[in-house]
């Protein structure tokens, strides 16, 4: 019998959805534990960080790191797991591109703390207390991770072997990748995006498309009576399909919601939002600057729409300070 693989799953700045997508293997979990020991997985096992620190370098065969790098704890574990792992996979949109936590790059640390600890409607903080990384009490010094100014992708902190995109990644893709590693199949070159395809969402989308995509204004999904058949763009709703990699099975559009771009850009595209922006702008049915401006006013939030999952990954990476 082949020796079992050592498998680790870790969450950085994440919502937990990626770990749940691993749990979603359902009965295939038996296949996974047949081939692998789960050595570290905070959502399911009580392995401590010091246990990981004691593992020899390269002890873990495969680590799925999900979540962005937002604080010193995320960074420490990213560096630690890099050292301990043979293959490190950036699992899910946050580790791949910064994801939803990456939207915080539109603000800085002070602005975020001010909003969260002083201003939010549910906060009562008369003493204006802010989290301190170090705090002395009579029993000794307490320590919490330091909150960084920027959200970073995993690859901006450590060397990453593969990217498995999605918010969360489709569980079937994970099982395929896992079995490929177990069976010793030829792995793609380092730095590849795995568990996804090279074409765009539009290539796989079954909705009816014509050559005419011109619109006078853009609408939010609730403003249209979706017929369930026509391309969202042709109905005036922004859909990120043209600049998003396929592989999810066009799940959102199949569920009658436009694509939000979680699978990231297709190969050779440096900045997913810029490509989306380019595609959407050319749909405007006017050559008059004033009319064009009016149509653009209906694109309420370009950053949040075109870079929903990818601000830290994009060319500009964050708002200017």
């Amino acid at each position, binding site marked *: 019998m082949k020796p079992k693989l050592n498998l680790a799953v870790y969450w950085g700045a994440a919502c937990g959805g990626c770990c749940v997508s691993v749990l979603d293997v359902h009965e295939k979990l038996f296949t996974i534990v047949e081939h692998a020991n789960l050595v570290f997985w905070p959502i399911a096992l009580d392995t401590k960080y010091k246990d990981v620190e004691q593992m020899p370098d390269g002890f873990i065969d495969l680590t799925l790191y999900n979540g962005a790098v937002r604080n010193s704890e995320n960074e420490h574990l990213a560096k630690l797991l890099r050292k301990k792992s043979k293959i490190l996979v950036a699992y899910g949109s946050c580790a791949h591109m910064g994801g939803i936590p990456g939207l915080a790059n539109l603000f800085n640390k002070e602005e975020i703390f001010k909003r969260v600890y002083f201003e939010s409607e549910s906060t009562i903080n008369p003493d204006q207390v802010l989290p301190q990384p170090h705090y002395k009490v009579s029993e000794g010094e307490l320590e919490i991770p330091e909150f960084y100014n920027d959200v970073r992708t995993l690859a901006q902190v450590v060397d990453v072997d593969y990217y498995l995109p999605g918010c969360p990644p489709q569980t079937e893709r994970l099982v395929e990748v896992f079995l490929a590693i177990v069976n010793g199949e030829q792995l793609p070159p380092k730095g590849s995006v795995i568990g996804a395809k090279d074409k765009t969402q539009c290539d796989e989308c079954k909705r009816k498309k014509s050559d005419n995509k011109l619109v006078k204004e853009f609408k939010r999904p609730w403003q249209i009576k979706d017929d369930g058949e026509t391309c969202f763009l042709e109905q005036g709703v922004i859909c990120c399909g043209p600049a998003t990699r396929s592989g999810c099975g066009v799940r959102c559009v199949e569920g009658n919601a436009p694509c939000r771009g979680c699978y990231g850009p297709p190969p050779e595209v440096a900045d997913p939002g810029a*490509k989306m922006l380019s595609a959407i702008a050319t749909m405007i049915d006017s050559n008059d600057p004033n009319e064009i401006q009016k149509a653009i006013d209906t694109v309420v939030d370009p950053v949040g729409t075109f870079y929903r999952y990818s601000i830290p990954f994009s060319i500009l990476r964050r708002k200017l300070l």
Partner: protein
Amino acid sequence: MENKVNEKIFKPKIVGFLCNWCSYTGADLAGTSRMKYDESIRVVRVMCSGRVDPTFVLKAFKEGADGVLICGCHPRDCHYHEGNYKCLRRYHLLKKYIIQMGIEPDRLRLEWISASEGAEFAKLVNEFTQKIAELGPSKVKQNIETFS
């Protein structure tokens, strides 16, 4: 005199994307007519202003451009019929994006320059350089390189 001292401190770097058929020829006319204009501009010739992908503009800012100037054929004059209109639409949306990202909107400008408008091109470059000089150096490059 004071202006000259200021110019020595900050010389704007401007990237210009000029379409092959009108604007580049217009810039060429400025050169062959011995018109003087500011050397702040680095010209990239593209076949059409419709070829200017927003990625190019963002990359220029990332690499340290203080301003980006896009020039194309006048409306109804495009060699490819509607490339300049596509550029115009992208320009307006891109501007909204860079404002959200904290970049001063005046650092990006789109103008129409025809093949016969050498003098207008020279004037435009001088004007734009002056505007960028007033804004000061762009912080984009430094911002990208700084990670806490």
